[in-house]
């Protein structure tokens, strides 16, 4: 897992899954909109650009803190520590984006690419040509990070303008259980 991560330059840290992307569905580079919504929700940034660091605890199945407060134009470096037993995601997006992403992640779990406790790296040897629709499946969105149990990861994000955002874990059942928080914009 770690050796795979090293070779990637995107904000995504989910190398095992990223490798499943078929040719023609190359990784979205940092800053390139992965969803088309990216411009509205903000954009990834270099850690050095952040003036503010926010520590977020990821647990089973919750975030601490439960909500965030940011300013438009602010760049925040999130330090994400998973204290739980399960794999969790930290994903910044709209409720609609999360709903769409939940379906993708449910499929990744169903196909064994993700397990409740981690990323199945052994799947990188799979014959991708047989995966059909799965070829488009990749967990490489710049607005998302997967954090395994015991891991600490980071995401630096520039909140460009005020919009209705949530940070959420889209592992199956986690969002539904309340592992989601609102991003409030203050002036």
């Amino acid at each position, binding site marked *: 897992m770690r050796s795979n991560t090293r070779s990637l330059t995107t904000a995504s840290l989910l190398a095992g899954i990223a490798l499943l992307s078929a040719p023609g569905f190359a990784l979205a580079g940092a800053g390139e909109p992965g969803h088309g919504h990216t411009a509205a929700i903000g954009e990834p940034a270099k850690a050095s650009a952040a003036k503010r660091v926010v520590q977020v605890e990821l647990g089973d199945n919750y975030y601490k803190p439960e909500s965030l407060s940011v300013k438009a134009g602010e760049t925040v470096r999130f330090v994400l520590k998973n204290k739980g037993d399960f794999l969790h995601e930290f994903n910044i997006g709209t409720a609609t984006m999360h709903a769409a992403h939940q379906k993708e992640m449910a499929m990744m779990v169903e196909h064994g690419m993700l397990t409740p406790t981690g990323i199945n790296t052994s799947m990188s040897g799979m014959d991708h040509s047989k995966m059909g629709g799965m070829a488009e499946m990749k967990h490489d969105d710049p607005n998302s990070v997967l954090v395994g149990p015991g891991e600490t990861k980071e995401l630096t994000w520039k909140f460009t303008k005020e919009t209705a955002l949530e940070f959420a874990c889209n592992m*199956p059942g986690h969002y*539904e259980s309340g592992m989601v928080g609102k991003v409030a914009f203050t002036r």
Partner: protein
Amino acid sequence: MNTASRGLSRRDALKLAVMAGLAGVVTAYPERRTFAATQQTLDLAVERSRLTIDGATSRGIAIGGSIPAPTLRWREGQEVVVHVTNKLDEPTSIHWHGLLLLGVMDGAPGFNGYQPIMPGETYTYRFQLRQAGTYWYHSHSAGQEQEGMYGAIVIEPAERDPVRADRDYVVVLSDHTPERPDAVLRKLKLGSVSEGYYNRGKRTLFDFFQDVDRDGFDATVRNRLDWGDMLMEPTDLADVTGYSFLVNGKGPQDNWTALFNPGERVRLRIINASAMTIFDLRIPGLPITVVAADGQNVVPVKVDEFRFGVGETYDVLVLPQEDKAFTLFAEPIDRTGFARATLAPREGMSGDVPARRPRTVLTMADMGMDHGSMAGMDHGSMAGMDHGSMKGMDHSAMMGMGTGSMPGMDHSAMPGMNHGAMAGMDQGMAKASDRALGWADAATPPGTKALSYTDLKAFSKTRDLREPAQEIVVRLTGMMSRYIWTLNGAKFDQGTPIRVAYGDRIRIRFVNETMMAHPMHLHGMFVELENGQKDRLPRKHVVLVPPGQTTSVQLTADEPGEWPFHCHLLYHMASGMMTRFIVERRTASL
């Protein structure tokens, strides 16, 4: 104040808790359905009462002034004291279903030194809450549970709840009959000889001729003979009918309603407090995320419906986004009616009530046991069978027989049969005939998901990973013809108790030799269902064992005492389907 339909946020519950704490003692009175207190002492009276369902009033028994009994909201770690006063003219009891406690506090008369509460007497229960989650309480005397003596228990966790919700509702399902329970049992015993008194779906002579046309005469007769041997009938999914199905004591027309604002996260703590009814439950338009089973947290699993055994509880989350009403719909598996409630943004709204699903027809696969009768088959006659008419045969039933169990069968006598073609036939048939075949078939539409026991995965890891030191086989047995239900062929008062050593890891293998599903309930300890989830076996207090199937569980025998171990179908227990599960400390003499 109508807390029942508003639900309680945790904050509200805490506010109430503070108020109740000041009051010191909370006394139950009618219309008051929820209690919460930091210092938990409460008085509950058991008394004759009346309840009105969809406009019809009948008699019942209330605990704490209502049916269902008031929801008890407690907190993990608290010591609770409950004074129960019997105002009936018969003995009573209250059993705390699913709670870990000292045997004498468990409330099952005749076990662990607990005596029934006699008329006019008060019994004081006192126990420390060693767990969190959704449980329930009910009478363990005669048929009183059927008459309304059931209510919910909600224990808030001492630590952070892994589930966060904006609304929190208790949903108690039950079955109600205006008949007295002893009369029901009498009819079951009298009527079962050949009438199938309550089985209105009984197959008729007309069905017989239809089956002959469909299956061929021999197959039909054989099927009939098999059913005769089983002393059951193929539609015997439930043996009592004439029930009204209730949600929080309300009938389908009463339409119990839970409010939400669109976008809110709603937790439903659903309890099957029925005497006899196994439900299929769904909320059309809302996916259901199951977060706890039998009060114990599970890894959240998203489904569209679930089958719900008597005595089980499921905590689920729904996230209604639209400004509209949704119907919570629970059909008994014999499809003799439905329980219905509404989730809505405002009072007075109602959603569509879905069409009822077909009643499944049990197949030979649901027999599981009676392969012996196959030996007597007249194979010669099979050669002459009209294969053309075999298309309609229920091959799915034959699948379940297993070839190994048919040693006496002479395959050479079946020259015309194309076994290869048969494999695919049953599926086509199930689709073509708008019927459900076999106990497990809930007629779940394609593309939707029904919860399976294999989906349940404990939220925290299994603590005791030792190989079981002892394996106990419990055969679920019965004689429908005389309405006698038994364990290992013996009625409660005639059977041998199960004995295990304190501290041992035990495996129990339930072998269901009957045509009905039995929700098996062990008091005092959770069992861990061996459902393939390795180190996360789900912890349950009731395990629904399908007809003709074998289900195994493990447990650590860490609660000394002599615990009731029984089928939670009230009339099955009443007719003898119970035993003692004795956890004894090792002594020097052993």
